[in-house]
């Protein structure tokens, strides 16, 4: 199981690195087309923006470790294990609960966007924005897993540092 999860994580990292490289290369291509060829491609900018939103939400869902997040953890780290576990539980329940609650309406909005196409690449906006519901599901799942671990194993060996969320 752990090996499988590790493989998945490596795959997610590889995909993120690929998207990052593609963003960088596409942007350079755009500069080249604008200044050297004097004939901007147009589609390059849109591809960059697509890659950017995917890097953010795909990355947040699958490659960010808990210590990568911008967090205010002074209080959390200062209290003893008991209250810390309660705090972690409240966080996890709040995030998982509200994200799941927003899932269906969000999905309705995203799937409605199949009729709207992007400006230059003519990709349905649904296929671009689908990364957001994916992010919602992945983060909610990671926090539900965390609730289970917190309830059954406690805070010490909850794999906090390796957690996907």
């Amino acid at each position, binding site marked *: 199981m752990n090996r499988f999860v590790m493989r998945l994580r490596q795959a997610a*990292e590889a995909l*993120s*690195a*690929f*998207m*990052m*490289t593609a*963003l*960088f290369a596409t*942007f*350079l291509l755009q*500069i080249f087309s604008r*200044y050297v060829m004097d004939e901007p491609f147009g589609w390059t*900018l849109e591809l*960059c*923006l*697509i890659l*950017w*939103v995917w*890097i*953010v*939400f*795909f*990355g*947040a869902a699958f*490659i*960010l470790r*808990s210590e*990568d*997040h*911008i*967090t*205010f*953890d*002074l*209080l*959390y*780290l200062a209290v003893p294990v008991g209250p810390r576990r309660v*705090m*972690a539980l*409240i*966080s996890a329940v*709040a*995030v998982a609960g*509200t*994200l799941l*609650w*927003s899932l269906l*309406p*969000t999905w*309705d*909005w*995203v799937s409605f966007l199949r009729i709207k196409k992007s400006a230059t690449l003519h990709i349905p906006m649904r296929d*671009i*924005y689908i*990364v*957001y*519901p994916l992010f*919602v599901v992945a*983060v909610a799942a990671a926090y539900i897993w965390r609730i289970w671990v917190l309830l059954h194993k406690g805070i010490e060996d909850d794999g906090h540092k390796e957690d996907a969320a």
Partner: protein
Amino acid sequence: MTLAFSLCLLTIFVLAAIGTPVAYSIIVGSLVYLGVKGQDVAMAGEQMISGLFDSFVLLAVPLFIVAANIMNASAVSERLLKFCVATVGRFRGGLGHVNVVSAIIFSGMSGSAVADAAGIGRVVIDMMRKSGHYSGGYAAALTAASATIGPIIPPSIPMVLYALVSNTSIGYLFLGGIVPGLLMGVVLMFMNAYYAWKNNVGREESVPLREIPKVTMQAFPALLMPVILLYGIYGGIATPTEAAAIAAAYALVIAVFLYRSLSVKSFYEVMVESARPSASVGLVIGGALILNYIVASENIGTTIANALVGIHVAPLTFMFGVNILLLILGCILDASTIILVILPLFIPTCQQLGIDLIYFGVVTVVNTMIGLITPPYGILLFVINAITRIPLAEIIREIWVFIAALVFALVIMILFPEITLWLPQLFGYAG
């Protein structure tokens, strides 16, 4: 303030205080707001993702991160340091001056204080400790303080974020940061000279003058980078976002072909390690986009502006009030959170009081950078502690004089807007 908005703020503060990532706290708070208001909860996701998709300028954020990481992974920092040692290392307290000067040069290529501290900062701390003239705590504290210059001298990720929330020109903001950044360098070098004089710090063996041309030649391609960036942006050749990509490409070219110090494997690692902060900063930006939408629909900024204008607050009093508040917030909050969430609240007031938004932006970004080294929550202290294993208590003991020096520079910048506005006006800024 409506019930929905009060509940939204309460949720964000409680969740963030108990250790929920800031971005998730904001998302949950916004969902609570939309739920209580009876609005469509899909609005949260819509504001986040379409806001990120529509902002061309934000592409500068991942590109600046890539550029800084490529430079840190290659031998660029070492060559720059050799150059600094050869030039300013010969004075008393020399390595301390090397620390500040290398931070200033490096800040002309990187837009992130954390990248500066983790990159060139790590190397310079080692040098200072090995020389035996400086305590670990002093070396670490000076490095943390000089890394705050990174996002003040262009390029700068925090200024891109400020431009996003204030609708000001990134080009003028970047120009506005140059003189304040140099001023910060001067006050830090002054403190270091004083320390060296008081503790009678010995001199390093100085590099013979005849070696300076060789060392300069080796560092030359790296030294050229800030020039290329600034010329690109202000010669009207490239936009700041394009300059970010050109910087990254240039760093890649010199690392691979000139210094031959970047393998395929380390390039892959650079990309993974660039994707992570891009995602975490991007997520907080997304959160700020929903929150700013809510703040705008509640008219919070205008309410604050009317209240302050109603009681006849003088612009200078307002500036000092905001800066004191930000310094306090900087002790506990992250800089990007302050810039994206707190600053927009004051922008309408600035407009009503006639305070220039470039001046306001540069000064408040300097303020939030000081916040990166103020305990208890100072991300630069944590980063340096993590990479050098110098205990936090030792760093914090030495950091106060540098905080005092930087606050002094901040006060000067508040009192004399010309320090910020002189260069932008020279380049045609009408404000």
